[in-house]
């Protein structure tokens, strides 16, 4: 599941080893920029996962280094983050990959009669 396929061309799933926190952050940022506190609240709502602040900043740094998100300029102490075009593409590839695994799992459970 390391490779996602779009438009007949193979794209590497860069989020495969990025960790759950990174994926959740990208999903949360997919509908618009957010700062740290808003990200934690949104992820708690959408996935029921309470991200620790240390985990959050570690994942934000990693995603920023990979060029998947960017920090927006602000005068406030809080930095809003925005998903970049490569970040959105990487998220699509990863979600496609998860969908394939999910469909295969459901089908096999059905065939196995469990």
């Amino acid at each position, binding site marked *: 599941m390391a490779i996602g396929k779009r438009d007949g061309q193979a794209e590497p799933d860069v989020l495969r080893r990025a960790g759950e926190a990174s994926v959740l952050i990208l999903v949360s940022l997919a509908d618009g920029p957010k700062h740290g506190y808003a990200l934690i609240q949104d992820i708690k709502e959408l996935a029921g996962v309470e991200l620790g602040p*240390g985990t959050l900043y570690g994942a934000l740094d990693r995603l920023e280094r990979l060029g998947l998100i960017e920090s927006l300029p602000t005068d406030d102490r*809080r930095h809003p983050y925005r998903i970049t075009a490569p970040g959105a593409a990487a998220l699509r590839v990863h979600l496609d990959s998860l969908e394939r695994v999910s469909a295969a799992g459901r089908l096999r459970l059905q065939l196995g009669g469990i």
Partner: protein
Amino acid sequence: MDGPPAPRLVHTVLRCYPARWRRRHGDEAAELAALLIRDGAPATAIAGSYLAGAGRAWLTPRPGHRVSAVVCALLVAAGALGVSTGLLASAGPARAASTNRASTNRASSSRAGTHCRPSAPAFVPAVTPAWARPPLIIPAAVHDRSC
């Protein structure tokens, strides 16, 4: 918007982060901690999360520092190789002499008909390779005078 002040414990833990991280996220992290504590999160859990994050921040190599780390590793390896080569070169003749003496003793004892207990095989270099020999330095002044 100013949130409530974060407890001293969180501020102490935030000091464990590298300076570059504190410059970038320090104020925001303190404010976030204060907001989470206001929402009911235990301060110890937040401090623990930041402490683990600080450990990760120190262990994560920065992109610009990878090259220097490789250069340092190469220098250390080169230094270790030089030291071991020097030791090998200085110990080579001594080992060769002791080997000769041992073989002489063995030969004489076998001639005398005594039984020896076999010893564990050990690597003994018979000839010092050219790359392991110490360089021969001839002072230029002496060389000039003799010629």
